[in-house]
């Protein structure tokens, strides 16, 4: 019995000290790689958003694509992940610096900043979808409807005469309304699975749109106008003056969206590395086994659905306030599909993947105006190309490791 297994304890332990030093050196170099890659990405993003010349945009895109696949091929992405995981606080610092850098470069580019904020809105919704689809395995083909719930909440609050609700409360309320309306969908969603659940949400999204179109109080097909955000006495329609530089007023929205996206990233990250993360994964992967080991499937599905919808609703309220006008055709089935495709393109379940994916999905159709009607075609071809070359998305999800394999 005892002889049967090769005992690992008998192996001569490798000298601990030099190895530790080697690991530390590699970690530091990984972090340097991480910082360099973030800087390069920030530069590329700023350039892509700002560039007007179509040929320049296209060649930058091709260069980015080649760089991406080279990075995946030569394990640069793995090094970046290790570097970031090894130094959590410096990582956050680098990311904040990169965001501020982009903001400084684009400070006077109204359209660019608007697009950036839109990318962040989409990324936030997709982080919600990551919880729903990526973790709990819940189909949600009506994410745009929940974005719309938040947007229309903000708009309706603006329409109401006599009551003044602060915009921060309005944003939170947007999340709450998305959850409340989402709860209508919970029962059919708990009773269906797979394609059937997908169809349920699809129908719900269409229903939401039809309802908005028909509802006179919510402006019907003409939609509603919104006033800009005022947060803690600061009117978001003012230009920002910081460090002797003038930022377009859209920078306000970019900063607010950044804060929301960062909060969503933190939420998804904490969720992933907790017992709840394991439970949601188990619900997605094997409901029967999960049940047998004591999980109430409905409870965890409802939690995932709720958290995702809060994010979508809050993002929707900000989005509506930012664009100053919303109509039913801002929240169509097509938009919902875009959001699901962002999650898939980024790598289902990888929270960082939604950032580049949202950038591609939102930015590209805007940047490729020169081919007009064909731009969506080119965009679709690009998505297919990425998935052919990297079937689990740009940043495939890694195995969660809460504990080390080898004991220290």
């Amino acid at each position, binding site marked *: 019995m005892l002889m049967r297994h090769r005992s690992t304890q008998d192996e001569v332990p490798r000298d601990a000290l030099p190895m530790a030093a080697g690991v530390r050196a590699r970690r530091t170099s990984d972090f340097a790689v991480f910082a360099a890659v973030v800087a390069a990405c920030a530069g590329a993003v700023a350039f892509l958003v700002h560039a007007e010349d179509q040929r320049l945009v296209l060649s930058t895109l091709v260069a980015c694509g080649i760089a991406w696949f080279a990075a995946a091929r030569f394990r640069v992405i793995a090094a970046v992940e290790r570097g970031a995981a090894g130094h959590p606080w410096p990582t956050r610092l680098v990311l904040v610096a990169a965001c501020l850098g982009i903001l400084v470069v684009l400070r006077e580019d109204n359209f660019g900043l608007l697009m950036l904020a839109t990318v962040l809105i989409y990324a936030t919704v997709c982080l919600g979808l990551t919880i729903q689809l990526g973790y709990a395995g819940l189909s949600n083909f009506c994410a745009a409807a929940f974005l719309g719930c938040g947007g229309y909440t903000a708009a309706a609050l603006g329409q109401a005469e006599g009551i003044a609700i602060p915009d921060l409360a309005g944003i939170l309320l947007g999340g709450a309304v998305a959850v409340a309306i989402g709860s209508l969908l919970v029962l059919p969603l708990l009773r269906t699975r797979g394609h059937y659940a997908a169809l349920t949400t699809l129908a719900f999204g269409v229903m939401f749109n039809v309802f908005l179109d028909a509802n006179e109080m919510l402006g019907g097909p003409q939609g509603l106008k919104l006033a800009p955000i005022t947060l803690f006495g600061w009117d978001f329609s003012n230009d920002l003056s910081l460090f002797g530089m003038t930022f377009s007023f859209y920078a306000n929205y970019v900063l607010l969206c950044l804060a929301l996206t960062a909060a969503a990233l933190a939420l998804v990250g904490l969720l992933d590395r907790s017992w709840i993360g394991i439970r949601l994964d188990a619900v997605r*992967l094997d409901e029967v086994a999960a049940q047998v*080991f004591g999980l109430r499937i409905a409870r965890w599905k409802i939690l995932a659905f709720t958290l995702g919808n809060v994010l979508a609703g809050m993002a929707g309220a900000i989005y509506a306030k930012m664009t100053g006008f919303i109509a039913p055709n801002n929240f169509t089935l097509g938009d919902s599909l875009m959001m699901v495709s962002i999650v898939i393109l980024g790598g289902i379940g990888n929270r960082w993947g939604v950032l580049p994916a949202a950038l591609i999905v939102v930015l590209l159709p805007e940047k490729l105006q020169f081919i007009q009607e064909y731009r969506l075609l080119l965009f679709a071809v690009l998505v297919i190309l990425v998935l052919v070359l990297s079937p689990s998305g740009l940043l495939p999800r890694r195995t969660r490791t809460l504990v080390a394999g080898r004991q220290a």
Partner: protein
Amino acid sequence: MSALAAAPAILEAKGLSVRFGGLFALNALDLTVRRGEVLGLIGPNGSGKTTFFNVTSGIYPAAAGTIVLDGRDITREPAHALAGLGLARTFQRSRLCLPLSVFDNIALGAQERLPQGVIDNLLRRRTLTRTVAALAEEARDLARLFNPDLAQRLDEPAVALGMIDRRRVEICRALIGRPKILLLDEPSAGMTHDETNQLIDEILDVQRSRGDLTVIIVEHEMGLIERITDRCVVLNYGRKICEGHFREVAADPTVREAYLGHS
């Protein structure tokens, strides 16, 4: 044996029936399992062995009859309530969450006693780190009982393991919840003869080290049943046709007929 025969019943099925349309998968089954025994559940394909596991663990509803676990009627309990009452099982077709790490898979079995609340999980990170470390220690000890190598591979995805290690992880997942009774559904499926014997030795070791753990095992490999079980129950067409020590059961003409058919 005599000590076991006197032991109190831990699981008791009375008149238990399960129907699929017009077919009785279990037909008025009476079955008593005593605390600490290893009971073999055998019978030809389709005789209702796995159905018994599925109705006991709450996956199928019972059409009639009762199941009592340790003095408590669990016939109508939903599946998720049974883990907390001391029931754990494995599956005939391995049901690990393959993309998840070995540790995550084992931790699923302990989830009854892990923090459930959102605040506890998201904000009380220090406590969370402590529970992770404590559970990792427990999982490692458990995995070491089976295979010291496995204890060093808690961070690897389950998909990277071979069949025998997957079975081991499944059993660790069932054991880490400290069940009173463990249902093993064909642990030998998909493994070689030697691997099966090895795994069964390990299961017996674990069972003996946990004095009062009761095991019901469904198995087709008769040599294995003979070695491991204290007592056997033979099913055919959802009915109990024979019960007793393996040697008595194997000599029984009704059992031979059920397996070989009329000659």
